């Protein structure tokens, strides 16, 4: 489903915090419907870059357009067209599953009818029927993550940003999670995902690896393995990350 349309265009995007350059002149493009993996060691600058793309943080220099909107001036337009799932679980723990869905659907402007069908669909797909009226805080982590993702794509955004969405969950749940990602991509939603798991990297159409705030490589998993002449993504990552000066 990957088309030629560019939904993320990034040109020398940079973010400084005082002397520290968190993200250093990253340049790349992402096509519509693509699953774009964003890799890097801890502290490499992934989250900072992602926050700029989501309009949560203003870049220091460089340019970027998300879904055709400028990251400096049109952050609110960007927000209308994206979904975001942060590293830290950030749905309301003291609201129930249904109440969270209703709330986020509501502020993204879904109509009552849409809300109703979407909610039913979602609860059904996640198998959360019996938990629908439970407080989100009481759910196991895996379900929380899946719920977060579903809420992030509830309004059918053009792009969804996922910041380490599968941290701390078991392999089965991770598998299910990726199934959901594929479904979303099938519907034409571009997926921009950061991860630490190299097996997950293999699921991406293209991946980039950040080292010390710079984007070192950007290609398909197969091409990368060829270039580095190694058998797995693990080794590609290891070779690059070994040269890093920053670590957490």
């Amino acid at each position, binding site marked *: 489903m990957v088309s030629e349309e560019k939904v993320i265009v990034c040109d020398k995007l940079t973010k400084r915090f005082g002397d520290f350059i968190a993200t250093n002149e990253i340049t790349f493009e992402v096509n519509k419907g693509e699953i774009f993996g964003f890799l890097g060691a801890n502290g490499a600058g992934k989250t900072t870059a992602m926050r700029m793309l*989501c*309009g*949560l*943080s*203003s870049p220091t220099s460089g340019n970027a357009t998300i879904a055709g909107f400028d990251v400096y001036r049109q*952050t*609110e*337009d960007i*927000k*209308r067209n*994206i*979904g*975001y799932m*942060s590293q*830290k*679980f*950030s*749905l*309301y*723990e*003291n*609201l129930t599953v249904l*109440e969270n869905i*209703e*709330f*986020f659907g*509501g*502020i*993204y*402007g879904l109509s009552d009818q849409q809300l109703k069908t979407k909610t039913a669909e979602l609860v059904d797909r996640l198998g959360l029927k019996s938990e629908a009226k439970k*407080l989100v805080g009481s759910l196991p982590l895996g379900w929380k993550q899946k719920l977060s993702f579903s809420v992030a794509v509830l309004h059918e955004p053009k792009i969804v940003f996922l910041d380490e969405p599968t941290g701390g969950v078991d392999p089965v749940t991770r598998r299910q999670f990726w199934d959901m990602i594929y479904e979303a991509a099938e519907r034409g939603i571009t997926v921009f995902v950061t991860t630490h798991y190299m097996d997950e990297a293999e699921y991406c159409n293209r991946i980039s690896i950040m080292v010390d705030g710079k984007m070192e490589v950007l290609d398909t998993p197969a091409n990368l393995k060829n270039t580095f002449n190694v058998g797995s993504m693990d080794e590609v990552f290891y070779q690059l990350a070994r040269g890093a000066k920053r670590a957490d």
Partner: protein
Amino acid sequence: MRTLKFLLRKEFRQIFRDKAIVALIFFMPCIQLIIMPLAADYEVRNVNLAVVDHDKSSYSQKLISKVIASGYFRLQGYNASFKEAFALIESDKADLILEIPQDFERNLIREDKQKLFVAVNAINGTKANLGGSYLGTIIAAFNADIRLQLIQQPRFSAFPVIDIVANNWFNPVLNYKVFIVPGILAILVTMVGGFLTALNIVKEKEVGTIEQINVTPIKKHIFILGKLIPFWVLANIIFTIGLLLARLIYGITPVGSLFTLYIFISVYLLTVLGFGLLVSTFCDTQQQAMFIMFFFMMIFILLGGLFTSIDSMPQWAKLLTRLNPVRYMIEVMRMVILKGSSLKDVLPQLGVVSLMAVILNGWAILNYKKTN
């Protein structure tokens, strides 16, 4: 508007989900409103008096019994010396010492003039002032009695006397409850509203849910409104309960119109909540927000004119109280509830508070940054 509906629904759900907090929000102010006024009694009725009577004459006895009979003083005992009486002051058992010198009666008759000594524990200024001046009045009255007796005046006084007729309006018997209840209600509503709003946005920051909000296309002013309205409603409910309690327990019924009162409280709450929200946007943790609110609340309350009158502050402090929203609230509560002031009378206060509301809320919206 539709977004606002969802925001409000969410906020109300969250507020009422935590039963412990709901209980605190409603019960604490009520209990305090019931109990605090009982404690706030400034009436100088129980001034503790130590007497050192060196004379032990019939005059000195008469004077002492006249002082006790006034009802303002409580005799803590006769002491043999000033030193002994002073020990009572040191241990806070006495507030005033009345010392009658030896030969008081004899000298008064023989020499026409006699001194009396009064010593006041002046650490607690109000009590000292009032107690001392009551004692002075009683001594003067005693003096007049004596004089009358000794020179057996005819129909009228031989000396010009100015009679002061004091009239205390709105609260003729100087009931402290009448004076303090509206003020305490004002403070309680301010605290509930202020603290809760201050904690609210910060809590979302601390827990991280604010990220999920910031990444939505929600408008900043809608978000702030969504935070403002629930606490505004809540504070209004508490205010109403408070008014009812004031009526049921202390028999205080607003003399002025409820309409005026609610107009003012509505605008005033916007100011207080706006202040809370502003603090909230400046802080990263609930702890910080709490301390900043605490800091300002204490100043607001102590400089609000409830416990000490604004009239007795130095000029700079008076100017400072003009920036204090609580001051206007307490003023208006007294004006409308006790004096029956009309909307026109409270227009100046309403104007200032409205201006504050606009500034504080505007500032809160500006300072709430969805993009850093």
